[in-house]
């Protein structure tokens, strides 16, 4: 393992300290926690927006804190959900009297910890609502199992719910647009090489030199299949077709080409070029495109493609201003 760290057991604390130092005008760390909040929180009568999850997905989620997006992010251990007490502190810190909205990625750990925190907050008289993002089409959509994972599409939920909250909308309104976004967003990822958790010291899975995995999760969970590496165009075709087969995107869409941590932007743009061509051929109108690192998996090499079907309301919310360093509009 070769990493720029001080101590494998301190990476999260060290990272959080580094995230706030130098940025103290806009964000602060709640002492003795790994919760990061806007300095102006709680904002009176604005719905507070909280997200979070395991770390290792940077800039998710702390990079999305800012006016027009999140009010707080709860940072867990690497790839491990944060705990209810920490989430509760975040909820309390951003509650301005209009309630708090939680954006949760669909992993058992995240769902359980956020739900427990929500119950604790409600017991203290804070109104809490939530949405669970499950955009990963690589997993079977089933109510009998854990169901689909939440991946890069989560960032678009942050943006849209955040814009709605910033406009002064009620908790119910924020929930409505967040749910609409979840219903209209689909993603799928792929990887070329694995990542190594600092505390584990070795890669969490293996991929051969000329091998890739389609449908991989952002913690290296298995995808749909492993096969020979093919060209960027062929990868783009496979990923895009899987999204189009899962949901009717006719009309306007937003496209996100997301790097998993170790993929040069050059390669992301090569993928984007083909994705745009495919969509044009299908008469799907690309309203907005995002290319870059939004939801990573440490130093995993690979990318994901996200499509979000847009109506006028979602377009407007996507376009309103955001101060978040990792998603400036």
């Amino acid at each position, binding site marked *: 393992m070769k990493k720029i760290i001080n101590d494998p057991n301190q990476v999260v604390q060290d990272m959080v300290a580094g995230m706030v130092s130098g940025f103290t005008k806009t964000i602060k760390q709640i002492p003795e926690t790994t919760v990061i909040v806007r300095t102006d929180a709680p904002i009176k009568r604005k719905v507070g927006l909280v997200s979070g999850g395991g770390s290792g997905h940077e800039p998710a989620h702390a990079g999305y804190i800012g006016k027009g997006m999140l009010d707080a992010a709860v940072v867990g251990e690497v790839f491990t959900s944060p705990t*209810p*007490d920490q989430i509760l502190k975040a909820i309390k810190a951003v509650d301005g009297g209009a309630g708090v909205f939680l954006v949760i990625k669909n992993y*058992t*750990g995240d769902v*359980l910890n956020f739900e427990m925190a929500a119950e604790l907050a409600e017991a203290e008289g804070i109104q809490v609502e939530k949405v669970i993002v499950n955009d990963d089409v690589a997993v079977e959509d089933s109510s009998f199992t*854990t169901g689909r994972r939440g991946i890069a599409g989560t960032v678009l939920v942050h943006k849209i719910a955040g814009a709605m909250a910033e406009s002064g909308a009620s908790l119910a309104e924020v929930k409505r647009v967040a749910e609409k976004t979840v219903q209209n967003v689909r993603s799928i990822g792929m990887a070329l090489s694995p990542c190594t958790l600092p505390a584990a010291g070795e890669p969490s899975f293996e991929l051969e030199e000329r091998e890739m995995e389609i449908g991989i999760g952002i913690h290296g969970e298995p995808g749909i299949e492993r096969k020979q590496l093919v060209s960027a165009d062929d990868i783009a075709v496979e990923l895009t077709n899987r999204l189009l087969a899962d949901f009717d995107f006719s009309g306007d869409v937003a496209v996100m080409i997301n790097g998993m941590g170790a993929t040069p932007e050059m390669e992301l743009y090569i993928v984007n070029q083909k994705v745009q061509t495919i969509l044009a051929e299908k008469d799907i109108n690309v309203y907005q495109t995002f290319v870059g690192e939004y939801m990573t998996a440490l130093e995993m090499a690979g990318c994901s493609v996200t499509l979000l079907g847009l109506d006028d309301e979602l377009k407007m919310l996507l376009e309103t201003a955001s101060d978040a360093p990792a998603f400036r509009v």
Partner: protein
Amino acid sequence: MKLTVNNSIQWFLKANEKMQENKEYLTLLDKKIGDSDHGINMARGFQEVANKLPTQDYASVSDVLKDVAMTLMSKVGGAAGPLYGTIFLKMSTAVKGTDPVDYQTFTNGLEEGLVGVKQRGKADVGEKTLVDVWAPVVDFFKQGVDFQADQLVETAENAMDNTKDIQASKGRAAYFKEKSIGHIDPGSTSSFYIFEALAEVIREGE
């Protein structure tokens, strides 16, 4: 035998030793059908429990269990944190008011823990989770009349081994679908250590 405050503290100190000894093994199990963190999570959480218990004055077993629950909930993280937290919190409530805790009350506490964790995780028997160890252990306690160390270990161990043949439908392991068959469930293994530790306390108390 009846379970005293001291017995219950010993239970978790012993459980911690097992989590530390098997940290790598639990993580390895989680690498096969999860995300390679179960041993790290459990070792972190139980170490915190072991650090805390000897420094406090507990009036009842219920208080010990409550502190264990809150510590695990705030230190383990992942799925296991809220799941184990729920189990011990429900047990704490169920045994409240009886000290030391007799066999029937303890059995009732275990059952309440099981009911709680099934609700929290929306999991039932046969989904390749720690429920598959807790359910048979609760049945075993309900059939018995007094604490039985050897049979407890045997029951928990068999239950743990049996998770190998199950296809996971809950937790991260569900993503592995049929490939999850052939591997023991990490959470069932950490649960086995908890019952193995309990058996040691029972042996000492006899």
